[in-house]
């Protein structure tokens, strides 16, 4: 398969720049918090700069091809290579990660959560960044696995140390769940390695091979392992229970990172690894994935309606939103997968933003209990309006980013890939569409009870309740801008992902209807509304 190796130093630097920053911070004494903040922010800005350069330099005409491709030996004995590259599927996610982290650091400027210790907190965040970007660039299963797991420890400690009351339970649960999934996923990777003749962990080769020579039964098993690994991370129903706990307890920054990027590792795994490498199994599993996805949509929404805690509600909404993403993926069409990637980015921006808001609310009111809140629009109008705006984006309002993750996913479910039951997916389509109503329900309900009405007596004259501060504005503005930008011009992302998705689906053994449509459209030489 074709790859482009120009400027291939770029990715390595991009991945490890945060780590370098972390190492520098190790040397700075703990008392000097200001320097820590500066170094962390600077490091993430450098990373963002590199990511920006990547965005500029990226060859969009060949978005389906791995670019900045590096392929060297890493751990020879297990045939694991240091293979990294970027294509249209990973580019948006890398950009998202690189964008979110500086915002987190800006936010951290005067929001280091209890019990303090900026040094450790920021170092962990930087390690997280390396892990996340690494996962998105890895083109070798072992490397992918390692980066996939690297994020666990920092996140565990972020929740464990800087979390809320119940942080012990939540952090352990998060850790155990994800490890459980990834351990089984590793088994599947190994099985894949041995079952294909190539004896390689290179994703490129394995994708090209697309499960050839593996019996159907085995494929199903191997896929099941990956399904668990990625599904827990997504998280799909019924593996989602770690998520609300983790989010509720995590500090704001942790929640933001978790929602904005970490969850995407799972879905990314599906589209990068599970489906292209085992298309036959994917096809067999698709109805089940779709089923769990739509259950997740409804279930997450119902879960939201039952919540009394704002942050927990937002967390549950992630279950629903990721359900849309998974529904798109389950269709195995490029419509669906494009929608899924868009959904990931959109969810990253929107839910990340919601968690920022939740953090700020907590800081002002010292509670997130919906019952006790109210009248935010009166006391902190800008905060209230931002909440309203982001809620609208979250419920999939067209013209804002959330819509382009949801609607095309529902659209794709109308006509899933050949070999996948159309009837089944049409039912999913209807259920998913109903899910949008529930989404509006819980978000507006939240908005009404927190932002509207008169402030409760408890907080009516509380001087702590101030409007959005400058650091908050700086941290939030890019997200808000992104939500509008991608809502108005969804093409910015779709254009990048489309070729890559088509390329990866191209290899699938079954000719997918999406591809046919694509060809038909290409030959007719025009597009329509």
């Amino acid at each position, binding site marked *: 398969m074709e790859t482009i190796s120009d400027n291939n130093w770029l990715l390595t630097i991009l991945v490890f720049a945060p780590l370098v920053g972390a190492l520098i911070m190790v040397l700075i004494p703990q008392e000097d918090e200001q320097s820590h903040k500066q170094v962390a922010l600077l490091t993430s800005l450098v990373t963002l700069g590199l990511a920006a350069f990547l965005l500029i330099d990226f060859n969009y005409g060949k978005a389906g091809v791995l670019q900045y491709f590096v392929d060297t030996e890493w751990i020879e004995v297990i045939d694991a290579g240091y293979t990294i590259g970027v294509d249209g599927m990973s580019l948006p996610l890398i950009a998202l990660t690189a964008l979110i982290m500086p915002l987190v650091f800006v936010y951290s400027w005067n929001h280091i959560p209890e019990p303090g210790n900026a040094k450790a907190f920021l170092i962990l965040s930087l390690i997280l960044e390396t892990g996340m970007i690494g996962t998105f660039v890895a083109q070798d299963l072992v490397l992918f696995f390692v980066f996939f797991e690297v994020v666990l420890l920092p996140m565990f400690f972020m929740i464990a140390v800087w979390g809320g009351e119940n942080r012990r339970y939540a952090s352990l649960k998060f850790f155990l*769940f994800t490890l459980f999934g990834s351990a089984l996923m590793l088994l599947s990777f190994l099985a894949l390695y041995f079952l294909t003749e190539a004896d390689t962990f290179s994703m490129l080769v394995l994708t090209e091979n697309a499960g050839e020579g593996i019996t159907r039964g085995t494929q199903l098993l191997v896929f099941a392992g990956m399904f668990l690994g990625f599904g827990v991370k997504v998280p799909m129903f019924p593996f989602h*229970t770690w998520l609300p706990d983790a989010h509720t307890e995590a500090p704001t920054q942790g929640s933001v990172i978790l929602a904005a990027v970490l969850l995407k590792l799972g879905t990314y795994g599906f589209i990068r690894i599970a489906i292209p490498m085992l298309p036959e199994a994917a096809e067999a599993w698709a109805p089940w994935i779709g089923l769990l996805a739509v259950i997740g949509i409804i*279930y997450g*929404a*119902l*879960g*939201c*309606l*039952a*919540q009394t805690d704002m942050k927990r509600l937002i967390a549950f909404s992630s279950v629903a939103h990721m359900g849309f993403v998974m529904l798109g993926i389950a269709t195995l*069409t*490029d*419509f669906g997968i*494009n929608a899924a990637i868009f959904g990931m980015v959109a969810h990253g921006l929107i839910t990340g933003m919601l968690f920022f808001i939740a953090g700020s609310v907590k800081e002002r009111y010292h509670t997130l209990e919906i019952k006790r809140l109210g*009248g935010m*629009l*009166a006391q902190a109008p800008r905060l209230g309006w931002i909440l309203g705006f982001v809620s*609208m984006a979250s419920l999939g*309002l*067209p*013209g804002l980013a959330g*819509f*382009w993750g949801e*609607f095309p996913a*529902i*659209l794709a479910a*109308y*006509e899933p890939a050949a070999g996948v039951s159309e009837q089944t997916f049409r039912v999913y*389509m209807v259920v998913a*569409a*109903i899910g*949008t*109503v529930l989404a*509006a*329900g*819980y978000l*507006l*309900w939240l908005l*009404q009870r927190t*932002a*509207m*009405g008169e402030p409760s007596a408890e907080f009516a004259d509380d001087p702590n309740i101030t409007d959005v501060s400058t650091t908050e504005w700086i941290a939030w503005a890019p997200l808000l801008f992104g939500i509008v930008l991608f809502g108005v*011009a*969804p*093409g910015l992302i*779709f*254009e990048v992902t*489309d070729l890559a*998705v*088509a390329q990866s689906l191209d290899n699938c053994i079954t000719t997918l209807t999406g591809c046919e*449509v*694509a060809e*038909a*459209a*290409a030959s*007719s030489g*025009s*597009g*329509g*509304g």
Partner: protein
Amino acid sequence: MSVVLGLAASGSVPTSSTVTHSANWFLEYAWLVPLLPALSFAGILFFGKRMPYKGAELGIAAVALSFLLSACAGIAWIQHHDDIGYHAVQNSTQWLQSGGVEFSAGVLVDGLSVMMLLVVTIVSLLVHVYSTDYVGDDKRYTHFFAFLSLFTAAMLFFVLSDNILQMIVGWELVGVCSFVLIGHWWEEKPNSDAALKAFLTNRVGDVGLIIGTITLFFAAGGGVTFDTVRINEAIVQGEVGHTALIVASLCLMAAVMSKSGQFILHTWLPDAMAGPTPVSALIHAATMVVAGVFMIARLYPVFFEGMQIGGSSINLMATIGAITLVFGGLLAFVQDDIKKVLAYSTVSQLGYMVMALGVGAWTAAVFHLFTHAFFKANLFLGSGSVAHAVHSFDMKKDMGGMRKFMPKTYVTFIIGSLALAGLFPLAGFWSKDEILVGTGGWGLLGGTGGNGAYTFHLLMGMFGAALTAAYMTRCVYLTFHGEFRGDRSHGDPHESGPRILVPLYIMSGLAVVAGFVNLPAGFQLVGDSWTERFGHYVEPYKSSYFPAIDHATPSWSLAVAASAVALVGAGAAVYYYFVKVDRLADETQQSLTELPDGLSKSNGLAAAGHKVLVNKYYLDHLYEGVIVAFTKGPLARAAYWVNQKVIDRTVDKAGETAVLVGRQVYDVVDQGVIDGFVDGSGRVSDATGEELRRINSGKVQNYAAILFAMAAVLAGAFLIIFAL
């Protein structure tokens, strides 16, 4: 930007022969119309508070410009139409691509959209001006104008959309603006409740919109396009399976029902009156709520085929419209809140439009949309003017006799009421008449044509006309006649200022003249070149994307009959209120709003023997006891009861149930089963570990025993295995 599609498409995708390239500048650049208010939204949002008039001037300027552009576009369209016929101007650009398919965004300028541009910009402009006074001292004044601008932009964007995907965007955006503006005074819970209800009800309909759109995309758009023209053409050319169209039209109908307040999904609309009155006028009367009607008009082939409108005498859409118009009219009777009367009236009028579309009277529906926008906006603004003076909307408690204080408002209100009641020669008369003609149900008495014999719908329409006249009479009486019942402690109410009155004048002027743009063919007073101008320029019947519908011939007899019915309705109400109630009020020196029940009852019992004999009493009884009392009493009350207790309750219950189910699912399934399983397996592990620890008793000889026993057991096991 000016990439015009059309002939390039090939293959299974139908070509669009009616889409044209070169056109007048105003048609080419019609996208500027929504853009201006959009920019003004951003401007007001970011800089509004720092402007001398707090952003209002920006909004007004933008909408005024938009209006000018729309007016020019209107003229341009007429020229364009005269030159080359009904050839829509489409102007699009690539928006996004997915799955190798390119999706474009663009504007579709044809008679329908130009007409909508005009309506929206006129009403919006007047509402903007009106609002500077009406919400002048509101603390969220700037914010109010920002959202008025955004709404205007979204609505214009919606009507100009050249594809359904874009329509969804506009559709939802207007919904959000409606949400925000209904909840403008969010401090009060009922207001935010109403806002939520509006949005959620619309979301329910959106499920239909989404599924219907998707169905059309694949079934009619070939999986490559959302383009309305191409989808319509494919359907007109019979390339689309009937099942898909039934599904699509039913789904879209659900969306229409929610947006345009059709029966059973209409309950949010009266609640939406919680918003400021200008908002009600603009959004919940003149423009947004007709989005559903517009969508049917825009995608008419879908409904025409899907609902099997042609050659039938009953179909779902027409029936829903008919039920809505009667139901809404009945409900308007029992409202004490002037805005609620108008809201139910809007529901009823929307029912007319949907019914008209349902019976195939496309032009009639769109024409009614056009006229209704003016007179209903007029009425809303008039009610706002009154309410502004008395700080209340309650007709029974706080109004009465207002004509003395507000003569100018009174006049405009009367004009609007007459137009709404459909009295000759005001706007409502022409459009309502055309709808009734369009049912094709007047065949017995000389009317001809139409797409079928929708006699039932004709009757409902007639009944509706009587109701309309009656409830508006009641409304006028309660508001403007009798004695003032409000609080005079702060002095008498007084007439509103010019920024309120001028829009009222203009609106009432339009309510008078709007009907003349579509005089029926054969209207002897003017030449043929003045008749049916509206239909001529707006209805795309000569284009390729419109189904072959039949046009009914106007009928004088029907016009007379309908007017008569309306007069009867009005007359009954006049008799009841202006005669009976007024007289009683004079007698009792009170300002009354209804005849006291006890009086009429005892009166009736006492006079029982005479009633049959005395003609006067007989009529009295007929009018008062049967027509008015029954309609106003049991029937309207029953309707109201159904409305509040059944439909509204259902809506509320649906919400409550969802929350309840959510709680149950969360408590039982999530925290109980799933989390319980997880935690349980943890506990089992723990317990097992605890049991296993007992092996380590601390006694070394036990350890040795275990060691040897295990060795022996293993050896024995293997020996047995190998012996077998």
